[in-house]
Protein backbone atom coordinates (compact mmCIF):
# COMPACT_ATOMS: atom_id res chain seq x y z
CA UNK A 1 0.00 0.00 0.00
CA UNK A 2 1.13 3.48 -0.76
CA UNK A 3 3.07 4.71 2.22
CA UNK A 4 1.51 8.17 2.14
CA UNK A 5 -2.01 6.84 2.03
CA UNK A 6 -1.06 4.98 5.17
CA UNK A 7 0.02 8.30 6.72
CA UNK A 8 -3.37 9.81 5.98
CA UNK A 9 -5.02 6.76 7.51
CA UNK A 10 -2.90 7.10 10.63
CA UNK A 11 -3.87 10.73 11.05
CA UNK A 12 -7.54 9.87 10.64
CA UNK A 13 -7.16 6.99 13.08
CA UNK A 14 -6.17 9.43 15.82
CA UNK A 15 -9.44 11.24 15.21
CA UNK A 16 -11.37 7.99 15.18
CA UNK A 17 -9.87 7.20 18.56
CA UNK A 18 -11.23 10.47 19.86
CA UNK A 19 -14.64 9.21 18.84
CA UNK A 20 -15.15 11.48 15.85
CA UNK A 21 -17.87 9.96 13.74
CA UNK A 22 -16.61 11.64 10.58
CA UNK A 23 -13.35 9.78 10.91
CA UNK A 24 -15.33 6.57 11.16
CA UNK A 25 -17.16 7.50 7.95
CA UNK A 26 -13.78 7.99 6.31
CA UNK A 27 -12.67 4.46 7.13
CA UNK A 28 -16.04 3.11 6.09
CA UNK A 29 -15.78 4.73 2.67
CA UNK A 30 -12.20 3.72 2.36
CA UNK A 31 -12.44 0.03 3.26
CA UNK A 32 -16.04 -1.10 3.02
CA UNK A 33 -16.00 -1.94 -0.72
CA UNK A 34 -12.61 -3.64 -0.38
CA UNK A 35 -13.80 -5.83 2.49
CA UNK A 36 -17.05 -6.72 0.69
CA UNK A 37 -15.01 -7.76 -2.35
CA UNK A 38 -12.84 -9.83 -0.04
CA UNK A 39 -15.80 -11.42 1.78
CA UNK A 40 -17.55 -12.25 -1.47
CA UNK A 41 -14.71 -14.66 -2.23
CA UNK A 42 -15.98 -16.80 0.65
CA UNK A 43 -19.73 -16.27 0.89
CA UNK A 44 -22.16 -17.00 -1.92
CA UNK A 45 -23.70 -13.54 -2.44
CA UNK A 46 -22.93 -9.85 -2.13
CA UNK A 47 -25.90 -9.01 0.08
CA UNK A 48 -24.60 -11.41 2.71
CA UNK A 49 -21.07 -10.10 2.23
CA UNK A 50 -22.25 -6.54 2.83
CA UNK A 51 -24.07 -7.54 6.01
CA UNK A 52 -21.01 -9.31 7.32
CA UNK A 53 -18.78 -6.32 6.67
CA UNK A 54 -21.26 -3.91 8.27
CA UNK A 55 -21.07 -5.99 11.45
CA UNK A 56 -17.30 -5.91 11.26
CA UNK A 57 -17.34 -2.12 11.01
CA UNK A 58 -19.45 -1.88 14.13
CA UNK A 59 -16.73 -3.86 15.91
CA UNK A 60 -14.20 -1.37 14.56
CA UNK A 61 -16.17 1.43 16.21
CA UNK A 62 -16.41 -0.45 19.50
CA UNK A 63 -12.69 -1.15 19.54
CA UNK A 64 -11.55 2.11 18.03
CA UNK A 65 -9.26 2.94 20.93
CA UNK A 66 -7.34 -0.32 20.65
CA UNK A 67 -5.72 0.12 17.24
CA UNK A 68 -2.04 0.98 17.44
CA UNK A 69 -1.94 2.18 13.86
CA UNK A 70 -3.77 2.06 10.55
CA UNK A 71 -2.17 -1.20 9.54
CA UNK A 72 -3.45 -2.82 12.74
CA UNK A 73 -6.93 -1.58 11.88
CA UNK A 74 -6.64 -3.04 8.41
CA UNK A 75 -5.41 -6.35 9.81
CA UNK A 76 -8.42 -6.35 12.14
CA UNK A 77 -10.75 -5.74 9.18
CA UNK A 78 -9.33 -8.67 7.24
CA UNK A 79 -9.24 -11.06 10.18
CA UNK A 80 -12.75 -10.21 11.37
CA UNK A 81 -14.23 -10.30 7.88
CA UNK A 82 -12.69 -13.70 7.30
CA UNK A 83 -13.91 -15.04 10.66
CA UNK A 84 -17.44 -13.73 10.16
CA UNK A 85 -17.52 -15.16 6.63
CA UNK A 86 -16.50 -18.56 7.94
CA UNK A 87 -19.21 -18.44 10.59
CA UNK A 88 -21.79 -17.72 7.92
CA UNK A 89 -20.53 -20.58 5.78
CA UNK A 90 -20.70 -23.05 8.64
CA UNK A 91 -24.33 -21.98 9.27
CA UNK A 92 -25.06 -22.81 5.67
CA UNK A 93 -23.19 -26.04 5.93
CA UNK A 94 -25.19 -27.11 8.96
CA UNK A 95 -28.44 -26.25 7.27
CA UNK A 96 -27.62 -28.23 4.17
CA UNK A 97 -25.57 -30.91 5.82
CA UNK A 98 -27.91 -33.70 4.81
CA UNK A 99 -27.74 -32.60 1.20
CA UNK A 100 -23.95 -32.40 1.23
CA UNK A 101 -24.39 -29.45 -1.05
CA UNK A 102 -21.37 -27.61 0.25
CA UNK A 103 -17.74 -28.39 0.01
CA UNK A 104 -15.93 -29.92 2.93
CA UNK A 105 -14.46 -27.69 5.61
CA UNK A 106 -10.98 -28.73 4.60
CA UNK A 107 -11.15 -26.35 1.73
CA UNK A 108 -11.27 -23.49 4.14
CA UNK A 109 -7.83 -23.71 5.66
CA UNK A 110 -5.73 -20.71 6.43
CA UNK A 111 -3.44 -20.78 3.43
CA UNK A 112 -6.05 -19.71 0.86
CA UNK A 113 -7.16 -16.88 3.16
CA UNK A 114 -3.69 -15.40 3.33
CA UNK A 115 -3.44 -15.66 -0.42
CA UNK A 116 -6.81 -14.05 -0.81
CA UNK A 117 -5.63 -11.11 1.28
CA UNK A 118 -2.50 -10.78 -0.81
CA UNK A 119 -4.59 -10.87 -4.00
CA UNK A 120 -6.99 -8.23 -2.65
CA UNK A 121 -4.19 -5.92 -1.52
CA UNK A 122 -2.12 -6.21 -4.69
CA UNK A 123 -5.08 -5.74 -7.02
CA UNK A 124 -6.33 -2.81 -4.98
CA UNK A 125 -2.93 -1.16 -5.30
CA UNK A 126 -2.76 -1.88 -9.04
CA UNK A 127 -6.20 -0.50 -9.79
CA UNK A 128 -6.11 3.20 -10.52
CA UNK A 129 -9.82 3.40 -9.75
CA UNK A 130 -9.29 2.00 -6.27
CA UNK A 131 -6.03 3.78 -5.47
CA UNK A 132 -7.64 7.15 -6.06
CA UNK A 133 -9.07 8.04 -2.69
CA UNK A 134 -12.88 7.97 -2.98
CA UNK A 135 -14.44 11.43 -3.32
CA UNK A 136 -16.28 10.95 -0.03
CA UNK A 137 -12.97 10.37 1.76
CA UNK A 138 -11.55 13.56 0.35
CA UNK A 139 -14.59 15.53 1.44
CA UNK A 140 -14.25 14.15 4.95
CA UNK A 141 -10.58 15.04 5.12
CA UNK A 142 -11.46 18.55 4.07
CA UNK A 143 -14.12 18.85 6.76
CA UNK A 144 -11.85 17.44 9.45
CA UNK A 145 -8.92 19.69 8.66
CA UNK A 146 -10.80 22.94 8.25
CA UNK A 147 -10.60 23.64 11.96
CA UNK A 148 -6.93 22.85 12.20
CA UNK A 149 -4.00 24.97 13.22
CA UNK A 150 -3.53 28.58 12.28
CA UNK A 151 -1.36 29.13 9.22
CA UNK A 152 1.22 31.04 11.25
CA UNK A 153 1.75 28.08 13.56
CA UNK A 154 2.21 25.73 10.65
CA UNK A 155 4.56 28.12 8.90
CA UNK A 156 6.66 28.39 12.01
CA UNK A 157 6.90 24.67 12.51
CA UNK A 158 7.65 23.93 8.89
CA UNK A 159 10.04 26.83 8.51
CA UNK A 160 8.22 28.15 5.46
CA UNK A 161 6.57 31.48 4.79
CA UNK A 162 2.93 32.12 5.70
CA UNK A 163 2.07 32.93 2.12
CA UNK A 164 3.25 29.46 1.17
CA UNK A 165 1.01 27.93 3.82
CA UNK A 166 -1.96 29.97 2.73
CA UNK A 167 -1.51 29.21 -0.92
CA UNK A 168 -0.98 25.55 -0.10
CA UNK A 169 -4.16 25.57 1.93
CA UNK A 170 -6.01 27.30 -0.87
CA UNK A 171 -4.79 24.74 -3.32
CA UNK A 172 -5.81 22.39 -0.59
CA UNK A 173 -7.25 19.09 -1.37
CA UNK A 174 -6.90 19.55 -5.11
CA UNK A 175 -3.31 18.56 -4.50
CA UNK A 176 -4.20 15.53 -2.47
CA UNK A 177 -3.88 13.28 -5.46
CA UNK A 178 -0.35 14.40 -6.11
CA UNK A 179 0.45 14.08 -2.46
CA UNK A 180 -0.73 10.53 -2.43
CA UNK A 181 1.70 9.70 -5.17
CA UNK A 182 4.43 10.72 -2.75
CA UNK A 183 5.52 13.67 -4.85
CA UNK A 184 4.67 16.40 -2.41
CA UNK A 185 6.16 15.79 0.99
CA UNK A 186 5.63 19.33 2.23
CA UNK A 187 1.92 19.08 1.72
CA UNK A 188 1.82 15.81 3.56
CA UNK A 189 3.51 17.55 6.45
CA UNK A 190 1.14 20.42 6.13
CA UNK A 191 -1.72 18.04 6.67
CA UNK A 192 0.08 16.46 9.58
CA UNK A 193 0.56 19.87 11.15
CA UNK A 194 -2.94 20.96 10.34
CA UNK A 195 -3.97 18.04 12.43
CA UNK A 196 -1.76 18.71 15.42
Amino acid sequence: MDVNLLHIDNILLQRLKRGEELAFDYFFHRYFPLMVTFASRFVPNNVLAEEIVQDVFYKVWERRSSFANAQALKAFLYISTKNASYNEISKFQNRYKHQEAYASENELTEQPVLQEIIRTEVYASLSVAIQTLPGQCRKIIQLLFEEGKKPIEIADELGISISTVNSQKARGLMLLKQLLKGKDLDLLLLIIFLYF
Partner: protein
Amino acid sequence: MDNKRMHRVFYIVSLIQKHLDGTLTANEQKLLISWRDEHPANRQLFEELLQAKNIQEFEASYLSINTSRALVDFKRRYTLEQKSPASIRKILIKISYAAAVLLVVTGATWFLMDRQPRPTVTTVALEHQDIQPGGNRATLTFADGRTIDLSEEQTGIIVNGESISYQEDDIEIENLDAKEAKQLRLATPKGGMYSVTLSDGTQVWLNAESTLEYPSHFGTGVRVVRLDGEAYFDVAKVEGAKRTGGHLLQPFIVISRGQRVEVLGTKFNVSVYGDQPELKTTLVEGSVRLVQGENEKGPSVILKPGQQGIVSEGALAIGVKTVDTESLIAWKDGYFYFNNTPTVELMKEVARWYDVEVVYKGKMPNDTFSGKVKRNTTLMGLMEILQLSTINVKLEDNKLIIN
Protein backbone atom coordinates in the same frame (compact mmCIF):
# COMPACT_ATOMS: atom_id res chain seq x y z
CA MET B 1 -4.56 -16.06 12.01
CA ASP B 2 -2.87 -13.50 14.21
CA ASN B 3 -1.41 -10.05 13.76
CA LYS B 4 2.06 -11.41 13.22
CA ARG B 5 0.92 -13.38 10.21
CA MET B 6 -1.00 -10.39 8.95
CA HIS B 7 2.14 -8.34 9.29
CA ARG B 8 3.96 -10.83 7.10
CA VAL B 9 1.13 -10.80 4.58
CA PHE B 10 1.36 -7.00 4.31
CA TYR B 11 5.10 -7.31 3.95
CA ILE B 12 4.78 -9.83 1.09
CA VAL B 13 2.27 -7.47 -0.53
CA SER B 14 4.80 -4.63 -0.34
CA LEU B 15 7.45 -6.88 -1.90
CA ILE B 16 5.15 -7.79 -4.79
CA GLN B 17 4.37 -4.11 -5.31
CA LYS B 18 8.08 -3.29 -5.34
CA HIS B 19 8.68 -6.13 -7.75
CA LEU B 20 6.05 -4.69 -10.08
CA ASP B 21 7.67 -1.23 -9.76
CA GLY B 22 11.11 -2.72 -10.32
CA THR B 23 12.44 -1.35 -7.04
CA LEU B 24 13.24 -4.59 -5.21
CA THR B 25 16.63 -4.80 -3.54
CA ALA B 26 18.65 -8.01 -3.94
CA ASN B 27 17.81 -9.02 -0.39
CA GLU B 28 14.10 -8.36 -0.80
CA GLN B 29 14.16 -10.36 -4.01
CA LYS B 30 15.51 -13.33 -2.08
CA LEU B 31 12.70 -13.00 0.47
CA LEU B 32 10.07 -12.77 -2.24
CA ILE B 33 11.45 -15.82 -4.04
CA SER B 34 11.51 -17.84 -0.84
CA TRP B 35 7.85 -16.93 -0.21
CA ARG B 36 6.95 -17.89 -3.80
CA ASP B 37 8.66 -21.26 -3.47
CA GLU B 38 7.12 -21.98 -0.08
CA HIS B 39 3.93 -23.38 -1.55
CA PRO B 40 2.80 -24.26 -5.08
CA ALA B 41 -0.26 -22.09 -4.52
CA ASN B 42 1.99 -19.12 -3.78
CA ARG B 43 3.72 -19.55 -7.12
CA GLN B 44 0.37 -19.76 -8.87
CA LEU B 45 -0.87 -16.62 -7.13
CA PHE B 46 2.38 -14.79 -7.87
CA GLU B 47 2.08 -15.54 -11.57
CA GLU B 48 -1.57 -14.52 -11.59
CA LEU B 49 -0.73 -11.21 -9.93
CA LEU B 50 2.16 -10.44 -12.27
CA GLN B 51 -0.15 -10.80 -15.23
CA ALA B 52 -3.00 -9.08 -13.37
CA LYS B 53 -5.16 -11.83 -14.82
CA ASN B 54 -8.31 -11.20 -12.82
CA ILE B 55 -7.97 -7.55 -12.05
CA GLN B 56 -10.93 -6.50 -14.21
CA GLU B 57 -13.25 -8.88 -12.41
CA PHE B 58 -11.90 -7.63 -9.09
CA GLU B 59 -12.30 -3.99 -10.05
CA ALA B 60 -15.85 -4.59 -11.33
CA SER B 61 -16.82 -6.22 -8.04
CA TYR B 62 -15.28 -3.36 -6.05
CA LEU B 63 -16.90 -0.63 -8.11
CA SER B 64 -20.33 -2.27 -8.05
CA ILE B 65 -20.60 -1.70 -4.31
CA ASN B 66 -22.62 1.33 -3.28
CA THR B 67 -20.77 2.46 -0.18
CA SER B 68 -22.77 5.64 0.49
CA ARG B 69 -26.00 3.64 0.57
CA ALA B 70 -24.35 1.02 2.76
CA LEU B 71 -23.25 3.68 5.23
CA VAL B 72 -26.79 5.10 5.48
CA ASP B 73 -28.00 1.56 6.00
CA PHE B 74 -25.30 0.99 8.62
CA LYS B 75 -26.27 4.11 10.60
CA ARG B 76 -29.87 2.94 10.58
CA ARG B 77 -28.85 -0.42 12.06
CA TYR B 78 -26.31 0.83 14.54
CA THR B 79 -26.08 3.89 16.74
CA LEU B 80 -22.51 5.02 17.12
CA GLU B 81 -22.60 5.62 20.84
CA GLN B 82 -20.03 8.28 21.75
CA LYS B 83 -20.08 7.39 25.45
CA SER B 84 -18.63 3.95 25.10
CA PRO B 85 -17.00 2.20 28.07
CA ALA B 86 -13.88 4.00 26.91
CA SER B 87 -15.00 7.14 28.73
CA ILE B 88 -14.50 5.45 32.11
CA ARG B 89 -11.04 4.53 30.92
CA LYS B 90 -10.44 8.12 29.96
CA ILE B 91 -11.26 9.26 33.48
CA LEU B 92 -8.87 6.67 34.87
CA ILE B 93 -6.21 7.89 32.50
CA LYS B 94 -6.85 11.46 33.61
CA ILE B 95 -6.38 10.41 37.22
CA SER B 96 -3.22 8.52 36.39
CA TYR B 97 -1.86 11.53 34.54
CA ALA B 98 -2.57 13.75 37.50
CA ALA B 99 -0.73 11.22 39.61
CA ALA B 100 2.08 11.32 37.10
CA VAL B 101 2.52 15.03 37.61
CA LEU B 102 2.72 14.47 41.35
CA LEU B 103 5.26 11.73 40.87
CA VAL B 104 7.39 13.93 38.68
CA VAL B 105 7.23 16.71 41.23
CA THR B 106 8.36 14.37 43.98
CA GLY B 107 11.24 13.35 41.82
CA ALA B 108 10.12 9.81 41.13
CA THR B 109 10.41 8.45 37.64
CA TRP B 110 7.31 8.00 35.62
CA PHE B 111 7.19 6.09 32.44
CA LEU B 112 5.28 7.70 29.68
CA MET B 113 2.13 5.83 28.89
CA ASP B 114 1.23 4.73 25.42
CA ARG B 115 -0.56 7.06 23.06
CA GLN B 116 -3.93 7.87 24.54
CA PRO B 117 -6.10 10.89 24.01
CA ARG B 118 -4.32 13.41 26.20
CA PRO B 119 -6.10 15.84 28.47
CA THR B 120 -4.33 19.18 28.97
CA VAL B 121 -2.85 18.11 32.26
CA THR B 122 -0.51 15.68 30.50
CA THR B 123 1.61 18.36 28.87
CA VAL B 124 2.99 19.13 32.30
CA ALA B 125 4.09 15.54 32.66
CA LEU B 126 5.37 15.53 29.11
CA GLU B 127 7.62 18.53 29.59
CA HIS B 128 9.34 16.79 32.44
CA GLN B 129 9.84 13.77 30.23
CA ASP B 130 10.96 15.65 27.18
CA ILE B 131 14.48 15.85 25.82
CA GLN B 132 15.78 19.01 24.24
CA PRO B 133 17.29 18.89 20.75
CA GLY B 134 20.97 19.34 20.00
CA GLY B 135 22.52 22.70 19.14
CA ASN B 136 25.73 24.50 18.18
CA ARG B 137 28.16 22.52 20.26
CA ALA B 138 31.77 21.70 19.47
CA THR B 139 35.29 21.73 20.82
CA LEU B 140 38.44 22.97 19.12
CA THR B 141 41.76 21.30 19.88
CA PHE B 142 45.08 22.95 19.08
CA ALA B 143 48.35 21.30 18.06
CA ASP B 144 49.70 21.75 21.62
CA GLY B 145 46.84 19.70 23.04
CA ARG B 146 44.73 22.56 24.47
CA THR B 147 40.99 22.08 23.97
CA ILE B 148 38.37 24.83 24.19
CA ASP B 149 34.57 24.73 24.14
CA LEU B 150 33.19 26.82 21.31
CA SER B 151 30.33 29.26 21.91
CA GLU B 152 26.81 27.86 21.56
CA GLU B 153 25.68 31.31 20.44
CA GLN B 154 27.73 30.97 17.26
CA THR B 155 27.24 28.55 14.39
CA GLY B 156 30.76 28.39 13.03
CA ILE B 157 34.38 29.47 13.03
CA ILE B 158 36.61 30.91 10.34
CA VAL B 159 40.26 30.00 9.97
CA ASN B 160 42.47 32.33 8.02
CA GLY B 161 46.25 32.36 7.88
CA GLU B 162 46.59 34.55 10.97
CA SER B 163 43.75 33.78 13.32
CA ILE B 164 40.69 31.76 14.17
CA SER B 165 37.51 33.73 14.81
CA TYR B 166 33.76 33.22 15.14
CA GLN B 167 31.78 33.43 11.97
CA GLU B 168 28.94 35.69 13.11
CA ASP B 169 30.59 38.49 15.08
CA ASP B 170 34.26 38.11 14.16
CA ILE B 171 35.48 37.66 17.75
CA GLU B 172 39.00 36.28 17.67
CA ILE B 173 39.50 32.92 19.36
CA GLU B 174 43.18 32.30 18.72
CA ASN B 175 46.10 34.00 17.08
CA LEU B 176 47.96 31.82 14.60
CA ASP B 177 51.52 31.75 13.42
CA ALA B 178 51.24 32.69 9.77
CA LYS B 179 54.47 30.92 8.84
CA GLU B 180 53.88 27.52 10.31
CA ALA B 181 50.85 25.34 9.55
CA LYS B 182 49.47 23.77 12.74
CA GLN B 183 47.11 20.82 12.87
CA LEU B 184 43.68 21.68 14.33
CA ARG B 185 40.79 19.46 15.34
CA LEU B 186 37.13 20.41 15.43
CA ALA B 187 34.94 17.85 17.22
CA THR B 188 31.20 17.75 17.86
CA PRO B 189 29.59 15.68 20.63
CA LYS B 190 26.28 13.87 20.33
CA GLY B 191 23.67 16.60 19.90
CA GLY B 192 26.15 19.07 18.42
CA MET B 193 26.88 20.60 15.04
CA TYR B 194 29.28 23.33 13.92
CA SER B 195 30.78 24.73 10.77
CA VAL B 196 34.31 25.76 9.93
CA THR B 197 35.61 27.84 7.04
CA LEU B 198 39.11 26.64 6.21
CA SER B 199 41.99 28.87 5.17
CA ASP B 200 41.30 28.22 1.45
CA GLY B 201 37.67 29.36 1.74
CA THR B 202 36.26 25.82 1.81
CA GLN B 203 33.33 25.56 4.22
CA VAL B 204 32.67 22.37 6.15
CA TRP B 205 29.56 21.62 8.23
CA LEU B 206 30.18 19.00 10.87
CA ASN B 207 27.22 16.89 11.99
CA ALA B 208 26.84 15.40 15.49
CA GLU B 209 29.48 13.09 16.95
CA SER B 210 32.05 13.91 14.27
CA THR B 211 35.63 15.04 14.03
CA LEU B 212 37.48 17.03 11.37
CA GLU B 213 41.27 17.42 11.38
CA TYR B 214 42.71 20.17 9.22
CA PRO B 215 45.76 22.44 9.03
CA SER B 216 45.62 26.11 10.02
CA HIS B 217 46.62 26.84 6.45
CA PHE B 218 47.16 24.73 3.36
CA GLY B 219 50.41 24.55 1.45
CA THR B 220 50.79 24.76 -2.30
CA GLY B 221 50.29 21.05 -2.88
CA VAL B 222 47.23 18.95 -2.19
CA ARG B 223 44.82 20.06 0.52
CA VAL B 224 44.21 17.19 2.94
CA VAL B 225 41.73 16.87 5.82
CA ARG B 226 40.64 13.85 7.88
CA LEU B 227 37.03 13.12 8.78
CA ASP B 228 35.26 10.80 11.16
CA GLY B 229 31.45 10.95 11.41
CA GLU B 230 29.55 13.10 8.94
CA ALA B 231 30.28 16.39 7.19
CA TYR B 232 29.09 18.45 4.25
CA PHE B 233 31.85 20.07 2.20
CA ASP B 234 31.59 23.11 -0.03
CA VAL B 235 35.08 23.05 -1.49
CA ALA B 236 36.57 26.23 -2.93
CA LYS B 237 38.45 25.99 -6.22
CA VAL B 238 42.08 26.98 -5.66
CA GLU B 239 44.59 27.53 -8.41
CA GLY B 240 47.87 25.79 -7.76
CA ALA B 241 51.22 25.86 -9.54
CA LYS B 242 51.43 27.63 -12.86
CA ARG B 243 51.77 25.41 -15.90
CA THR B 244 51.93 26.16 -19.56
CA GLY B 245 48.42 27.00 -20.65
CA GLY B 246 47.22 28.17 -17.23
CA HIS B 247 46.97 27.03 -13.62
CA LEU B 248 46.30 23.59 -12.28
CA LEU B 249 43.55 23.34 -9.73
CA GLN B 250 44.76 22.24 -6.31
CA PRO B 251 43.10 18.95 -5.28
CA PHE B 252 41.20 18.73 -1.99
CA ILE B 253 41.26 15.33 -0.30
CA VAL B 254 39.06 13.99 2.50
CA ILE B 255 40.53 10.91 4.14
CA SER B 256 38.43 8.71 6.41
CA ARG B 257 38.78 5.27 7.84
CA GLY B 258 38.66 3.11 4.73
CA GLN B 259 38.23 5.64 1.95
CA ARG B 260 39.49 8.84 0.36
CA VAL B 261 37.55 11.43 -1.62
CA GLU B 262 39.45 13.57 -4.12
CA VAL B 263 37.89 16.71 -5.54
CA LEU B 264 38.81 19.96 -7.22
CA GLY B 265 35.92 22.23 -6.26
CA THR B 266 32.47 20.86 -5.50
CA LYS B 267 29.74 20.21 -2.94
CA PHE B 268 29.36 16.82 -1.33
CA ASN B 269 28.46 15.00 1.86
CA VAL B 270 30.54 12.30 3.51
CA SER B 271 29.03 10.00 6.13
CA VAL B 272 31.48 7.61 7.73
CA TYR B 273 30.10 6.89 11.20
CA GLY B 274 31.69 4.01 13.05
CA ASP B 275 28.30 2.38 13.66
CA GLN B 276 27.44 2.25 9.95
CA PRO B 277 28.89 -0.62 7.96
CA GLU B 278 28.87 1.51 4.82
CA LEU B 279 30.82 4.68 4.07
CA LYS B 280 28.57 6.96 2.05
CA THR B 281 29.71 9.83 -0.14
CA THR B 282 26.96 11.84 -1.80
CA LEU B 283 27.72 14.30 -4.55
CA VAL B 284 25.57 17.41 -4.90
CA GLU B 285 27.53 19.40 -7.47
CA GLY B 286 30.65 18.99 -9.63
CA SER B 287 32.54 15.72 -9.63
CA VAL B 288 34.56 13.67 -7.15
CA ARG B 289 36.85 10.67 -7.33
CA LEU B 290 36.02 8.21 -4.58
CA VAL B 291 38.82 5.79 -3.68
CA GLN B 292 38.43 2.65 -1.61
CA GLY B 293 41.08 2.54 1.11
CA GLU B 294 43.29 5.41 2.20
CA ASN B 295 45.87 4.81 -0.55
CA GLU B 296 45.28 6.83 -3.71
CA LYS B 297 46.02 3.77 -5.85
CA GLY B 298 43.03 1.84 -4.53
CA PRO B 299 39.99 1.01 -6.68
CA SER B 300 38.03 4.15 -7.49
CA VAL B 301 34.94 5.55 -9.18
CA ILE B 302 34.00 9.00 -10.43
CA LEU B 303 30.67 10.19 -8.98
CA LYS B 304 28.21 12.39 -10.85
CA PRO B 305 25.85 14.83 -9.13
CA GLY B 306 22.95 13.00 -7.49
CA GLN B 307 24.98 9.84 -7.02
CA GLN B 308 26.09 8.20 -3.82
CA GLY B 309 29.19 6.06 -3.66
CA ILE B 310 29.18 3.29 -1.08
CA VAL B 311 32.37 1.78 0.24
CA SER B 312 31.92 -1.19 2.51
CA GLU B 313 34.58 -3.19 4.20
CA GLY B 314 35.43 -6.39 2.36
CA ALA B 315 33.38 -5.46 -0.70
CA LEU B 316 35.13 -5.99 -4.02
CA ALA B 317 33.77 -2.89 -5.70
CA ILE B 318 32.44 0.51 -4.75
CA GLY B 319 28.66 0.65 -5.04
CA VAL B 320 27.06 3.60 -6.80
CA LYS B 321 23.40 4.54 -6.64
CA THR B 322 21.21 7.53 -7.43
CA VAL B 323 19.85 9.21 -4.31
CA ASP B 324 17.70 12.13 -3.21
CA THR B 325 20.53 14.49 -2.23
CA GLU B 326 18.21 17.10 -0.75
CA SER B 327 17.05 14.77 1.99
CA LEU B 328 20.60 13.61 2.74
CA ILE B 329 22.05 17.08 3.30
CA ALA B 330 19.01 18.69 4.97
CA TRP B 331 20.72 18.22 8.36
CA LYS B 332 23.11 21.07 7.60
CA ASP B 333 20.17 23.47 7.23
CA GLY B 334 18.61 22.23 10.45
CA TYR B 335 16.15 19.60 9.24
CA PHE B 336 15.52 15.94 9.61
CA TYR B 337 14.45 14.98 6.12
CA PHE B 338 13.47 11.37 5.70
CA ASN B 339 12.61 9.91 2.34
CA ASN B 340 11.61 6.28 2.70
CA THR B 341 14.30 6.08 5.34
CA PRO B 342 14.44 2.73 7.16
CA THR B 343 13.41 3.14 10.80
CA VAL B 344 16.70 1.73 12.04
CA GLU B 345 18.70 4.37 10.10
CA LEU B 346 16.37 7.11 11.25
CA MET B 347 16.79 6.07 14.87
CA LYS B 348 20.58 6.26 14.61
CA GLU B 349 20.21 9.87 13.53
CA VAL B 350 17.76 10.55 16.37
CA ALA B 351 20.12 8.94 18.91
CA ARG B 352 23.00 11.13 17.76
CA TRP B 353 21.03 14.36 17.80
CA TYR B 354 19.18 13.93 21.11
CA ASP B 355 21.95 11.99 22.83
CA VAL B 356 19.67 9.11 23.74
CA GLU B 357 20.10 5.38 23.54
CA VAL B 358 17.75 3.51 21.21
CA VAL B 359 16.63 0.10 22.44
CA TYR B 360 14.69 -2.37 20.32
CA LYS B 361 12.30 -4.66 22.13
CA GLY B 362 11.39 -7.60 19.99
CA LYS B 363 11.86 -7.61 16.25
CA MET B 364 13.78 -4.84 14.50
CA PRO B 365 11.28 -2.75 12.54
CA ASN B 366 11.65 -3.01 8.78
CA ASP B 367 9.37 -0.17 7.77
CA THR B 368 10.36 3.21 6.42
CA PHE B 369 9.44 6.81 7.17
CA SER B 370 9.07 9.90 5.02
CA GLY B 371 8.81 13.46 6.24
CA LYS B 372 10.64 16.71 6.99
CA VAL B 373 10.92 18.02 10.53
CA LYS B 374 13.01 20.82 12.03
CA ARG B 375 15.91 19.57 14.08
CA ASN B 376 15.12 22.08 16.83
CA THR B 377 11.98 20.08 17.68
CA THR B 378 12.08 18.46 21.10
CA LEU B 379 12.32 14.69 21.17
CA MET B 380 8.68 14.22 22.16
CA GLY B 381 7.62 16.56 19.37
CA LEU B 382 9.48 14.41 16.90
CA MET B 383 8.09 11.21 18.39
CA GLU B 384 4.53 12.44 17.98
CA ILE B 385 5.20 12.75 14.29
CA LEU B 386 6.97 9.41 14.03
CA GLN B 387 4.07 7.71 15.75
CA LEU B 388 1.96 8.54 12.74
CA SER B 389 3.80 5.74 11.02
CA THR B 390 3.83 2.26 12.45
CA ILE B 391 6.63 3.06 14.88
CA ASN B 392 5.67 2.59 18.50
CA VAL B 393 8.05 4.42 20.82
CA LYS B 394 8.31 5.41 24.43
CA LEU B 395 10.87 7.25 26.47
CA GLU B 396 12.25 5.82 29.69
CA ASP B 397 14.99 7.92 31.26
CA ASN B 398 17.41 8.46 28.42
CA LYS B 399 16.35 5.39 26.53
CA LEU B 400 14.04 5.43 23.57
CA ILE B 401 12.25 2.10 23.50
CA ILE B 402 10.94 0.85 20.16
CA ASN B 403 8.32 -1.87 20.27
